[in-house]
């Protein structure tokens, strides 16, 4: 064997943990991610901004005051207008006939009250609009009571406003699932395709690097990032909007972990052969588009026809969003989520096995 003189003595040190290839590979993943400000924005900041926007748009308001127009030409109008104004849920807008009809058509008032004679009144409104029907009931009640009607039964009101049933509660777990999908598929996929395009993959397989450690580094880095990603969005939802987190921490961790692994494996599969960024981008959109549409991130997937449900339920994003909703909003236990976790686990195994078989290193 060749025993040529070496330039310098061979260094054979006891390695610290930081010098192990897997540690180095995971560290490199982190460094590359953090040094890409755009990636940090889309993964961490954008979902929070989106949640904030949706939360504000669909926030719960104080019970709305209904505007009611009253025709002021008649001498009985003063009495009627006083009676209606007595109810704090109603606001009287004095109007003449043409202005009143115009306000009704444009929706500025829900109901137009036209006094006809003493103790006779005409209600003009659109009976297909719930708020208009509601206004008619309230106004009629106010006028009848002012006229001396007595209630025969005693009624008491108790207001129940429960967190968990609002739109923001529905959408936060959906956004969480969508974020897990996006960063899994984009984060893993683009980095690998980029490395292949730049021949960095080929250079790496020319070293003694273990190929499975290389792939594992993506998944490990994803899991570590998960803590920040999920923590950030969920923490924001809980803190700012009071979204409930009724499930146990263990269940929430299990669900997000399984979902993140499944989406990372799908990212590996998508990136397993593509050579160009354009190809990767197209393929990723093809994979994610059906899930963006059907998986019920922004509205319930049950709105789609029954015939499509088996397909929709088999999508990993549907499983992830449903499982997150069940545990956060209803406090579902791990056992009751077996179906969703099973679907995610199946995606994980199938996608990972296919990725390993198809992966092109050069």
């Amino acid at each position, binding site marked *: *064997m*060749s*025993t*040529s*003189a*070496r*330039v*310098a003595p*061979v*260094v*054979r040190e006891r390695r610290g943990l930081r*010098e*192990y*290839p897997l*540690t*180095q*590979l995971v560290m*490199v993943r982190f*460094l*590359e991610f953090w*040094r*890409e400000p755009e990636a940090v924005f889309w993964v961490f900041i954008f979902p929070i901004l989106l949640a904030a926007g949706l939360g504000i748009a669909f926030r719960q308001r104080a019970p709305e005051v209904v505007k009611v127009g009253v025709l002021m030409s008649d001498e009985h109008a003063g009495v009627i207008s006083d009676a209606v104004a007595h109810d704090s849920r109603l606001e009287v807008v004095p109007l003449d006939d043409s202005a009143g009809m115009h306000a009704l058509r444009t929706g500025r008032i829900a109901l137009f009250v036209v006094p006809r004679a003493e103790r006779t009144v005409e209600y003009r409104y659109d009976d297909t609009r719930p708020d208009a029907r509601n206004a008619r009931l309230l106004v009629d009640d106010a006028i009848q009571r002012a006229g001396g009607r007595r209630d025969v039964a005693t009624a008491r009101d108790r207001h129940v406003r429960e967190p968990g049933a609002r739109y923001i509660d529905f959408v936060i777990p959906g956004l969480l699932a969508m974020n897990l999908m996006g960063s899994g598929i984009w984060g893993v996929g683009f980095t690998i395709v980029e*490395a292949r395009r*730049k*021949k*960095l993959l*080929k*250079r790496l*397989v*020319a*070293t*003694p*690097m273990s190929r499975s450690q290389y792939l594992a580094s993506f998944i490990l880095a994803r899991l570590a990032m998960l803590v920040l990603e999920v923590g950030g969005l969920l923490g924001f939802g809980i803190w700012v909007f009071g979204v409930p987190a009724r499930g146990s921490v263990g269940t929430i961790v299990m669900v997000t972990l399984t979902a993140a692994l499944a989406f990372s494996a799908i990212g590996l599969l998508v990136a397993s052969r593509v050579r160009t960024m354009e190809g990767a981008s197209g393929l990723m959109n093809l994979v994610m588009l059906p899930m963006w549409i059907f998986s019920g991130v922004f509205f319930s997937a049950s709105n789609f026809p029954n015939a499509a449900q088996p397909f929709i339920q088999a999508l990993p994003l549907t499983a992830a969003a449903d499982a997150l909703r069940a545990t956060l909003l209803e406090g579902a236990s791990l056992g009751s989520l077996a179906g969703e976790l099973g679907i995610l686990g199946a995606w994980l195994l199938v996608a990972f096995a296919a990725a390993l078989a198809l992966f092109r290193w*050069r």
Partner: protein
Amino acid sequence: MTTAAAALAVRALHKRYGDVVAVDGLDLEVRPGECFGLLGPNGAGKTTTIEICEGLLEATSGEVEVLGRRWASDERELRQLLGIQLQETQLAEKLTVRETVRLFRSFYERGREPDEVIALVQLEEKTRARVGSLSGGQKQRLALACALVGDPQLLFLDEPTTGLDPQARRQLWELIGELRAGGRTIVLTTHYMEEAERLCDRVAIVDHGRAIALGTPRTLVQSLGADHVVEFALGDAPIDAERLSRLEGVRSVRSNNGSWSLTVAELHVALPAILAEVERRGATLAELRTHSATLDDVFVSLTGRRLREGA
């Protein structure tokens, strides 16, 4: 030198891509401690050959033995022993020089300290700089550092200076020269004859997937039987090649569209004779150049083409 002791032995190597033959029966033997060059024009099959030797491509047929081992059975061991620089690898731009070398160091069981290798390739000042901010020459030296950090027994360099400016190329030549002086076995490919002449102990000239000549740069040039080349162009009147070749000291004559290229043994004797012949024919010289014979002239004499067309 017996085959068993060769650092790299290649026998009857063939590589076909469909109908295209990239390597067509190539034989090589690289001795421990030498710097061996594969010199040839683009598309000669150099990169295919070196990548088969590096275990990155499968040969269609033929045998490759690296440090006495074979890729099929000893890949794990071989990967630890080789240092490889590929053509056109782009290392991760967001990492620093040290982070990159450290990553590569972690793959090897034994090797050198990252900082030591960075100093060796003269990138100390760039240790904390991002790879994306390096110049072409600096990137190429970083690639060399990544190839050296596992303290390889055999170093493969595929076109190490292609695309670099002359200054960066000279700096890299100095580095490779130092490695060679340190006794490291190196196999490199190049299409620059100056590079092969300057760096290599022995050179194989490769064309159309075959080694068409093998030897030290000196013996290859000597094989021309002439140590100078006279090139001239005539403005008008024709000249007789037959008469030129019979002049004293002239070994060979080539002409192409009124440009003449003669290899000559004794410039001081041949040149006056050539000029006299030109004058006798009443022709006027449009151009006259002489240079010492190079590997490029060897390539021309073997193939009729230049290493770099248009160069």
